[in-house]
């Protein structure tokens, strides 16, 4: 964040949050209007407001490039709103705005990186400006009419001066309308068409947020020379938003004329030279750094403006929630330390037990509440897909319906953040590869011509399941096998693969059945990344398909990363925690179950299936007295459709544990790649290591 002055960091977060939200809103409005194929005035106002806010806050943050692009869009919608031109090329309009919205989003992402350099947005800005010119010329007539009207109205007012003279007007804005400089800019844009010549002080309103202060203090001074009569321009000023009062400062005006405006402050016409009241441009240098509290007010104001319905919400820094979560985790552990204290063994303490039960109930509730605070509905992540599908529909010329089911399902915030990319890849994959290329293909296959991609989510035993499914052509197992063979990805005999295994091959690195690489997918990177990202957040992906009927990607993710149900097992003096979700069963080995192959690899036969055996003490180089397979315990674990048996000394018990990340020092030694997901503190204060079953299976 080196780009920003110190002390601005807190605002940067706020800015990013706010701008991202606004851009998402923009996309939604655009998509809605595009489907309805008409702009309601409300929508235009909304877009105008969004761009205005983005422009304002970006200018405040010193992000001129974003501000100027936002400004161009704002201008465009200003014209659409005010002049109501006949929009001939609506497609082009959408393209421009969607494009700009994407650029802005990308830029916002960039800002979050340390080495941020502003991207040049002059090209898209120019495009928009060109379009605006087209709009203006297309809608020239209504503009003229509008101009004519106020002329008639004001002609009764005393003529201030002849049209030839240059006139100066001092404008004061509403006391707390905020961002006076931008109001001034809007004003200038409004009246400039009526003026032959126009200049204003302070001159740097567009790019110096400090000029707002100058305007508050000294007013905004406009010098202009009108095409027709100055009255047209003055009435324009009068009508402009947030104008409290204005005074006409005439260099050689004969007599003061009083003009009443609304019922607000009376407007005096001064005889003084404009220079006296005019703030000099040099007086508004950068040295007066933006007043932090003032800026925060700006943002708060913007946030409040978002609508009354959201006022019961507050935005909280995620770090604070993480801390709270940690703290609650501590309390849960401490509670167990107190109530199960070894000192209490053998004592009959009725009252203590009662109080302890009450405490446990409360801590459980506390934990639930804290977890629920961090829960965010998936609808946000889903809505982003609407946009992607829309873009692809246009580019690929396919008709696709995107259907949401259960988008109100909630998952932990940290998971949502990691879900966007995988979802995007999967939706792209479904649209690009899944759905048939043409409507004819679909009709031939006795399916409705419009393809459907469904995003559904639901809760199932402590996990959230998200399914991305399409009703397209499905996965052709033979094609997949042939491709896998060609790429040397097969590890066993072709005939030995089950359908499920074949489907899951599409998620191997370097795999794509699409012959043609398109802009959206087909490079064989996507699905591999999907799997990696999902696994990173402790989830898993599997594929199911039926040839000719469609394909589903099933993502299973934990509700929360922070607390897992674990089974403690001991190996020598160490204790490990295996997440219950990956344990299928545990048992004592019986004679005849153990099989050794020619290379002395050990395998265990359970109900006719053979599983590899992993001795924990062996892979981790631990010392233990329990090396006899028949004396210890075997735990059958499964991750991602692959199973293995883990051998440990004994089972200790089941417990809910709070996951603690490893110290960065340990992460440097690749502990994560060695099958350790994190550690946790047990009730007695001792630490256990949580095993990453998936990693163990793939590594050993």
């Amino acid at each position, binding site marked *: 964040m080196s780009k920003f002055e110190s002390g601005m960091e807190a605002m940067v977060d706020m800015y990013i949050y706010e701008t991202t939200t606004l851009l998402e809103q923009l996309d939604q409005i655009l998509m809605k209007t595009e489907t309805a194929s008409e702009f309601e005035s409300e929508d235009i106002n909304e877009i105008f407001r969004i761009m205005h806010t983005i422009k304002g806050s970006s200018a405040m943050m010193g992000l001129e490039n974003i501000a100027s692009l936002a400004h161009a869009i704002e201008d465009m919608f200003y014209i659409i709103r005010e002049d109501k031109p006949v929009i001939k090329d609506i497609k082009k309009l959408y393209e421009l705005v969607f494009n700009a919205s994407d650029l802005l989003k990308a830029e916002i992402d960039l800002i979050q990186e340390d080495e941020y350099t502003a991207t040049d947005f002059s090209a898209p800005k120019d495009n928009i400006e060109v379009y605006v010119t087209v709009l203006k010329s297309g809608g020239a007539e209504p503009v003229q009419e509008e101009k004519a009207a106020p002329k008639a109205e004001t002609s009764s007012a005393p003529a201030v001066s002849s049209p030839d003279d240059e006139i100066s007007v001092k404008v004061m804005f509403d006391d707390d309308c905020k961002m006076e400089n931008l109001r001034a800019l809007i004003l200038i844009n409004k009246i400039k068409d009526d003026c032959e010549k126009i200049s204003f002080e302070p001159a740097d309103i567009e790019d110096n947020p400090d000029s707002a202060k100058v305007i508050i203090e000294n007013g905004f001074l406009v010098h202009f020379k009108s095409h027709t009569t100055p009255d047209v321009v003055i009435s324009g000023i009068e009508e402009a938003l947030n104008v409290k009062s204005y005074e006409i400062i005439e260099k050689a005006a004969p007599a003061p004329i009083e003009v009443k405006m609304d019922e607000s402050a009376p407007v005096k016409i001064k005889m003084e030279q404009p220079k006296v009241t005019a703030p000099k441009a040099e007086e508004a240098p950068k040295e007066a750094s933006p007043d932090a509290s003032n800026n925060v007010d700006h943002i708060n104001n913007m946030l409040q403006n978002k609508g009354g319905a959201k006022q019961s919400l507050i935005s909280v820094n995620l770090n604070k929630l993480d801390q709270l979560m940690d703290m609650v985790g501590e309390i849960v552990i401490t509670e167990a330390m107190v109530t199960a204290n070894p000192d209490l063994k053998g004592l009959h303490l009725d009252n203590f037990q009662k109080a302890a039960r009450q405490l446990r109930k409360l801590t459980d509730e506390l934990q639930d509440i804290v977890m629920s605070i961090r829960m965010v509905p998936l609808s946000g992540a889903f809505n982003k897909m609407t946009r992607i599908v829309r873009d692809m529909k246009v580019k690929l010329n396919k008709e696709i319906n995107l259907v949401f089911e259960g988008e109100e399902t909630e998952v932990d915030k940290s998971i949502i953040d990691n879900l966007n990319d995988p979802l995007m890849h999967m939706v792209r994959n479904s649209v690009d590869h899944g759905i048939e290329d043409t409507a004819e293909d679909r009709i031939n296959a006795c399916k409705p011509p419009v393809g459907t991609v469904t995003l559904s989510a639901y809760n199932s035993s402590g996990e959230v399941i998200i399914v991305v499914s399409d009703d397209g052509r499905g996965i052709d197992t033979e094609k997949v096998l042939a491709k896998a063979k060609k790429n040397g990805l097969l590890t066993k005999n072709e005939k030995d693969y089950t359908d499920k295994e074949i489907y899951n091959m599409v998620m191997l690195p370097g795999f794509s059945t699409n012959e043609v690489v398109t802009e959206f997918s087909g490079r064989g990177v996507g699905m591999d990344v999907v799997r990696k990202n999902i696994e990173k957040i402790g989830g898993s992906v599997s594929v199911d398909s039926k040839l000719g009927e469609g394909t589903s990607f099933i993502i299973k993710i934990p509700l929360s990363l922070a607390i897992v149900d674990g089974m403690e097992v001991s190996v020598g003096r160490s*204790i490990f925690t295996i997440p219950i979700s990956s344990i299928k069963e545990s048992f004592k080995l019986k004679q005849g179950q153990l099989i050794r192959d020619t290379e002395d690899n050990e395998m265990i036969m359970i109900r006719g299936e053979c599983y590899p055996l992993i001795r924990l003490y062996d892979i981790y180089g631990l010392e233990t007295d329990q090396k006899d397979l028949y004396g210890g315990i075997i735990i059958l674990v499964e991750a991602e459709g692959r199973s293995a048996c883990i051998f440990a000394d004994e089972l200790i018990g089941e417990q809910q544990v709070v996951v603690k990340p490893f*110290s960065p*020092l*340990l992460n440097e030694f*690749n502990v994560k790649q060695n099958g350790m997901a994190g550690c946790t503190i047990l009730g007695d204060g001792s*630490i*256990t290591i949580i095993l990453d079953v998936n990693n163990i299976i793939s590594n050993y």
Partner: protein
Amino acid sequence: MAAENFSESNNFFNEGGEVLLFSIDNKIYGIEIEYVTEIIGVQQITVVPKVPSYIKGVINIRGKVIPVMSVRNRFGIEERDFDERTCIIVVNFNGVAVGIIVDRVKEVFNARPKQISNTPDFKNVNKNRFIRYIINANDEVKLLLDIKTLITE
């Protein structure tokens, strides 16, 4: 960050400062006091597999899991069993907390600039990269550890 650390150390070289002294065998080492968070007795260490042998494992300090390293092992000195004087010095460098197991903690010593000298600059002789400065006071040599190298390399 590296530059900052360098200037900090330079400050120490020019102005001196407080040093926590501890001993391993008969040698005395020091850590700049600003890095030290606390000193605790040896407690149960949970072994973490698949890490270098000088990382002894992790300990639980009031709900925080921090790794502990043995300086003996790190310096290539033969390890010995813990006794009642064995201590863990918890240091915090750049937000990373690490416990350092030492034989015994001695005292806090205020080193004056005069007493601090650089380690010899011969590339072949001065192989011990963990030593930042040598403090010579009261006819005793104290080796000031370079926490950064100790923790990050």
